[in-house]
């Protein structure tokens, strides 16, 4: 066990720091560009330098570096330290791209990967349906190959950013005579067409980042299928895995913990600063026990990953601990700390994000939403029990 970097990596760290000192923030007139353009420009340079999109071939816009988790980690830490733009993590670059690199045709990779990692295409993910939340095998939206086009009919729900997206990657039923998962295919679909209607769904916070998407004879070219017909379930697992990895990381718990501590310093309880209240201190340190466990087990998983080893049940518990133990307990503590600010509703949309304690009301509500992104907590428990511990699957 050694938490220090070796000389090779210390020198790589220096190199990255040097690059960042030169390149971020942008200088002179470049600094006058709109924020998004600055980020794009910087990403291009960082990719050229071999710091971003390291797993993606150069011909698809990546930097094609040998896999080196330690270097990746140093880059991530150093970029984060100075607030430099990192890889896009949205549906396109974060979820579709790894899937295409594994399953896509050459044409698909050439056509879709570069604009996705540059953020030029916005992608949304069409998995959930009203009748099938956690149970993807029972999806009913169907696609039929008519001539050289897929014709799609049905409905998707909980589709983040569908109202902004250019494309969707989706699971559709293409083989009606095959049961459950075997009848599904993984399809890419252009969103801006007459056959697609997007309706926004508001959340309990009043914010609207989800959508329902209705398909009525919507079209997609025949060769926009990823993998074979009936292979959709398998293809989608790549994406789901990336999704799971993205949510509930160990740093997330640490960040949240620091914010809660900050809140306890600013608020009052029983006439003293909340952070001096004996009960609050017990709660905070009890929470910190989970947070530090999550963080250091994350570091362990990272070290194993770097050696190509599996972390066993930890591969399944991490997200559950972060979202369902730490997230819920943090929400509870925050609600205790903010006193009668808990009577306020925070309006979060865009720039109107609240600055007062009422933002913790939204956090409190948001801790419930942890359900939707990656399956409900009960599904997570099943996964821990079945895949992590080898208990039998539900009948």
């Amino acid at each position, binding site marked *: 066990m050694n938490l220090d970097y070796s000389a090779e990596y210390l020198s790589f760290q220096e190199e990255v720091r040097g690059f960042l000192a030169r390149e971020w923030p942008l200088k002179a007139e470049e600094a006058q560009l709109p924020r998004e353009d600055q980020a794009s420009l910087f990403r291009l340079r960082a990719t050229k330098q071999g710091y971003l999109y390291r797993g993606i071939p150069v011909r698809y816009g990546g930097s094609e570096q040998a896999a080196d988790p330690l270097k990746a980690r140093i880059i991530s830490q150093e970029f984060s330290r100075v607030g430099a733009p990192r890889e896009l993590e949205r549906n396109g670059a974060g979820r579709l791209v790894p899937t295409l690199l594994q399953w896509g045709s050459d044409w698909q990779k050439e056509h879709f990967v570069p604009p996705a990692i540059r953020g030029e295409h916005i992608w949304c993910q069409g998995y959930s349906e009203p009748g099938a939340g956690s*149970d993807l095998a029972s999806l009913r939206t169907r696609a039929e190959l008519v001539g050289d086009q897929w014709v799609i009919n049905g409905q998707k729900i909980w589709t983040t950013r569908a109202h902004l997206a250019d494309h969707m990657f989706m699971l559709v039923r293409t083989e009606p005579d095959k049961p459950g998962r075997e009848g599904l295919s993984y399809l890419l679909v252009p969103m801006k067409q007459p056959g697609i209607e997007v309706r926004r769904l*508001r959340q309990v916070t009043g914010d609207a980042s989800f959508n329902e998407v209705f398909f009525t004879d919507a079209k997609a070219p025949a060769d926009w299928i990823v993998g074979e017909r009936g292979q959709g379930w398998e293809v989608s697992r790549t994406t789901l895995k990336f999704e799971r990895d993205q949510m509930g990381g160990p740093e997330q718990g640490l960040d949240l913990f620091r914010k809660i501590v900050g809140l306890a310093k600013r608020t*009052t309880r029983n006439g003293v600063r909340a952070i001096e209240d004996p009960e609050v201190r017990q709660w905070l340190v009890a929470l910190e026990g989970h947070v530090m466990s999550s963080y250091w087990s994350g570091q362990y998983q990272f070290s194993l990953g770097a050696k190509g080893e599996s972390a066993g049940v930890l591969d399944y518990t991490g997200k559950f601990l972060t979202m369902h133990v730490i997230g819920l307990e943090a929400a509870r503590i925050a609600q205790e700390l903010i006193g*009668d600010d808990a009577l306020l*509703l925070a309006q979060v949309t865009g720039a109107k994000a609240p600055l007062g304690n009422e933002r913790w009301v939204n956090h409190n509500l948001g801790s419930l939403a942890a359900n939707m992104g990656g399956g409900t907590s009960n599904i997570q428990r099943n996964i821990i029990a079945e895949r992590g511990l080898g208990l039998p699957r539900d009948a």
Partner: protein
Amino acid sequence: MDFDLSDTQKALYSSVRRFFETEAPPSRLLKIYDRDEGLDRDLWRKSADLGLAGLIVPEEHGGAGLELLDLAVVTDAMGYCAAPGPLLGHALVGMALSLGGSEEQKARWLPRLASGEVVASLAISEHGERWQPDQWTAVATAGRLTASKKNVLFAADADLFLVGLAGGGLALVEQGAPGLTVREVDGIDRTRRLGALGFVDTPCELLPEGLAVAERIRDAALVLLAADAYGGAHRSVELMTNYANERVQFGRTIGHFQGVKHQIADAAAEVEPARQLVWYAAYTFDHRPDEAPRLAALAKAHLTDRYVNTTRTMVLLHGGIGYTWEFHCQFWLKRAMFDRTFLGSPSVHRERAAAMADWQIN
């Protein structure tokens, strides 16, 4: 010796529940959540016609002369429906006038409160978590008040405010009085709108009785919040049960999954027996005043914690749909957050209950 509601109380519960189920179903609640309508005067008038506005106002002043337990039964039914409206504050102002008003004040205000013609509200909360009578700092000098109050129910719509003063004094201020400003805030529970009041040299009229009445009002309010919390938590258990019996996943209703079943059973086991704690707290308010302050604190702390837990479980169990603005879960989820916070959080009242316990003394 019979620890049960009377037939009249059971009928009252049913009729109030039916009334709000009809007049304020979830579709109506969604409209209220969507549009900043303020007080629904039509609904208020109808509920006043039902006798709710004057339920505990003495009969000689035009009310029904009932007890807090009856009002708690009504509040339980309203909690079940997440019923919108200003009844909580209104009824408490009526109680304060009955208990502590001068004969002239009673004669002037109580009949109009009982009929619902005048809508009254309590203005007691101050900045810095000061909810309790012994914490109030507002001072009235020579019939003039300069102060500010927050978390006032339906501040923009009420006609009459009862304002808490330092030492537990109570004063009446009419809407539109000189120097009175009202600022509405966007509260978590839109069925119970909130606002802040500013008073600058505003004329007010003191009630002859002070602290003792203020403490009775506080205790009554705590019992009613507990009753509302029971009603809502009970409804949440029902909603979960119904959903578990309807929603199909992996080929069967999710109620077949033990995980779901046990979550609902745990909620029911915590919530259902707590209704009788509310009843007993109301009963002590009416018949065993020595025990009442402690029971009120205990009930408010216990029930509102149960309510928050239950509504959170409810949302989790519903998955995505439960988290949408359009679906009905949010009405109870947010009402629970309101009930828990309004008039002081569970930990505040637990410490009060501890301080009043007989184990404190011996």
